[in-house]
């Protein structure tokens, strides 16, 4: 009897747990919109039906069964939810800057679902963001791909569970400044950065080998082998070598980009995306052939020396050279208007509407390994959608509604102004920030910089 109760209880609890883990899925019929599918052209006066969180049908005169909410989008534009391949939004901390390799840490542990910035990103049409570790270390921590299901108190509810694992790497001034100049350890130069990464990969190969030889004798009779010590840091690096994790590498200069391409080729790693990559345009043919692409700023430059020789035409050059290219924010501010950032590629290089939109939808989806789920409006994909009043590449475009999995998370006409879901009771007067912090790639490294020169930039 006791055993039976135990089993029943387990079943109930298990059921409850999976119910708890279930994120909301919605149904909605959006009618008569100009549908910017991104992958299948523009469809005029077209309906999109989302059922149970999935785009069920795209066509004309669709009808909804039952009580599905119907939205008249006549004269409006519908595009896929915007995807940001580089963000630090909703992360409590960003840099574990204590060593040049910190592959063992994970941003999944520091996701803050209460960050009102999530709502602000939704109000700018962004539905998916890649929350990265900072750029203090040559090999940083593992990152987390999020769907901005705002309103939950459970961090796991905003994880995109289908997304593959990703990890942050960083080259150039940041790791050399933090470790070389800040702590007087390698790397102090771009030579050192290469050596650190090669050492890490080589160590991981040995670690893998140790486990493989142990596993090969483990089951055998009279075997006395003891298992190697489990090491999360080396295991993570081994997983990179096994192609289980996509590298997103902070980089600026062409030489360092080329260096990491070579290192990865030597170790048989091909899941590699470069981020920032301001001088990517100088090695565009190499990026096109050997990597999963480049995720760039629309126009940032000259904020530090390694971006002095860059150009706002970067995205256009990369696109014309067949590099899978995305435009990211790296900023709690820019993440609210990535549609505008993408539109700048029409000023700087004359990209077509479809090319420009792909920079913030299907291309970042490819770079995050989630393009089978999101990044375009196609039947069978997840119902992440944004309605705009004008074409989203127009400077006058204002996002009207944002959906994730068919659930509406932003509605310009219905939402209250104050969207905080946690208000501190000890906060007598709400603080006003003269400069709201919005750029955080080097957040949390001040501690290590006391011996170094003035620290005043963050990317």
């Amino acid at each position: 009897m006791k055993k039976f109760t135990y089993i029943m209880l387990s079943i109930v609890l298990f059921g409850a747990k999976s119910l708890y883990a279930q994120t909301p899925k919605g149904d909605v019929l959006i009618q008569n919109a100009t549908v910017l599918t991104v992958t299948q052209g523009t469809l005029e006066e077209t309906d999109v039906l989302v059922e149970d969180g999935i785009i069920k049908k795209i066509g004309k005169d669709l009808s909804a069964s039952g009580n599905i909410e119907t939205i008249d989008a006549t004269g409006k534009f519908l595009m896929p939810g915007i995807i940001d391949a580089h963000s630090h939004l909703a992360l409590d901390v960003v840099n574990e800057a204590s060593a040049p390799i910190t592959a063992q840490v994970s941003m999944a542990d520091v996701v803050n679902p209460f960050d009102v910035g999530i709502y602000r990103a939704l109000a700018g049409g962004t539905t998916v963001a890649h929350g990265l570790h900072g750029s203090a270390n040559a090999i940083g921590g593992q990152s987390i791909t999020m769907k901005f299901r705002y309103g939950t108190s459970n961090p796991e509810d905003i994880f995109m569970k289908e997304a593959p694992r990703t990890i942050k790497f960083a080259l150039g001034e940041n790791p050399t400044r933090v470790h070389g100049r800040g702590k007087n350890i390698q790397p102090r130069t771009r030579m050192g950065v290469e050596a650190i990464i090669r050492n890490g990969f080589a160590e991981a190969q040995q670690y893998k080998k140790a486990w493989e030889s142990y596993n090969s004798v483990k089951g055998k009779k009279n075997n006395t082998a003891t298992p190697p010590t489990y090491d999360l840091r080396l295991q993570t690096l081994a997983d990179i070598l096994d192609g289980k994790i996509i590298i997103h590498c902070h980089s600026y200069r062409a030489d360092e980009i080329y260096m990491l391409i070579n290192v990865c080729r030597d170790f048989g790693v091909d899941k590699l995306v470069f981020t920032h990559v301001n001088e990517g345009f100088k090695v565009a043919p190499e990026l096109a052939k050997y990597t999963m692409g480049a995720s760039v700023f629309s126009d940032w430059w000259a904020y530090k020396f390694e971006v002095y020789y860059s150009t706002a035409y970067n995205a256009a050059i990369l696109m014309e050279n067949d590099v899978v290219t995305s435009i990211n924010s790296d900023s709690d501010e820019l993440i609210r208007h990535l549609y505008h950032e993408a539109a700048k590629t029409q000023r700087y290089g004359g990209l077509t509407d479809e090319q420009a939109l792909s920079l913030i939808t299907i291309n970042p989806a490819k770079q995050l390994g989630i393009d089978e789920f999101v990044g375009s409006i196609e039947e069978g994909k997840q119902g992440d959608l944004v309605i705009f009043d004008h074409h989203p590449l127009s400077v006058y475009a204002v996002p009207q509604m944002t959906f994730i999995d068919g659930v509406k998370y932003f509605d310009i006409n219905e939402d209250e102004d104050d969207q905080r879901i946690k208000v501190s009771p000890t906060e007598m007067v709400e603080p006003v920030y003269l400069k709201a912090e919005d750029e955080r790639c080097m957040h949390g490294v001040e501690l290590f910089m006391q011996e170094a020169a003035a620290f005043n930039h963050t990317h």
Partner: protein
Amino acid sequence: MRKINLTIYVLLFFLLPVLSYGQIEGEVLKPEGGSFLLRGATVVTVTNGILENTDVLISNGKISNIGTGLSASGATEIDCSGQFIYPGMIDSGTRLGLVEVGSLAETQDYSEIGNVTPNMQALTAINPNSVSIPVTRVSGVTTVLSVPSGGLFPGTAALINLNGYTPDQMYTGFNGVPMNFPTSARRGRWDRRSDDEIKKDAEKALKDINDIWERASTYMKLEDAEADLQYYPEMQQLAKVVRGELPLLIEVNKAEDIKNALKWIKEKAVQNAILTGVSEGFRVADEIAAADVPVITGPVLALPSRSSDRYDAAYTNPGKMLEAGVKVAIRTSDAENVRNLPFNAGFAAAYGMGKEEALKAITIVPAEIFGVDDHLGSIEEGKSATLFISDGDPFETSTQIMHVFIDGYKIPMTSRHIRLYQEFLERNPGLEKH
């Protein structure tokens, strides 16, 4: 033998200049002076409506004639049919020219040591050859206020046109003295002072400013009485502000601070005050309008200053102030990306300000605030030929800027960003060396 040697030397002598020039290739593009006739454009005058199919004649650096069927009479003709002429855009608050690479202290010339340094001249430190200047001007932003920062009185800001080989050639008629009004706001999330500490700091800063103002007033009175004064450059400069010769640009953002600043302006009877920043202006827009103090606000593409604010608080701020009757100019507060000025105006337009008013906020309104509307801010006969020609609405990112004129000079439409594009679009060699 000697003769042959001589012949060789003579030959070499003639070859030398050829050889040395032989190492230099490529075309150098320089600003081009002269007379230009811009033929058949849609002229967005800003002050006198939109003129279809109209010619604009540029000579002696000025807009000498606006009309139809103008005779070229020696001027270089530029066909502008299907295109638009706008006055050059004015960014009323930047750091352009005062910094080259943001993080490198060696290139930061915007912040001098000391709390009260109004005598520090931005114009002195502006680098006419900054790489950012061509990057900016090809976007149609022709004129910027370069503003020093840090401390209570960081220096003297200067209005410059983005063409010229010396600061004096760039200077275009306005100087102003910025002042950081004491604030009870936090400077950023990293600002971990307690509420009490912040309040005390603000009170002390206000007391300091009052003392300094008092001293400057005394200095002015002594000057006016032709007293024999010792060299005191800080007070010399501030006395000009007290006298109303130089405008005071009061940087203030938090609503409560704005109210205090307005009170302070009244108390001190500041004759020529301009509020800058004003990110929470929408909360006290009526008070600002009633005080009749002009505002330079921005960036528009910014986060709200409070976490309880509506997501678009910064986008709607210029429109809300305008609606309340405030005179509003828009700035970027940027250095290398001042080219985003039209996009800041575009967002303000979309979020309540409207296109026409947003265009004014980056042309005629700042020109009026700075008192340079006699030569800048609109397309009118007699004004400076500081303008640009585009193939559409300059707020739209898909629009291309075709030509830029500054003080009558035709600006080469190139910059390092464009040259890198030209070099690397189709790299040679590509992936393989051969």
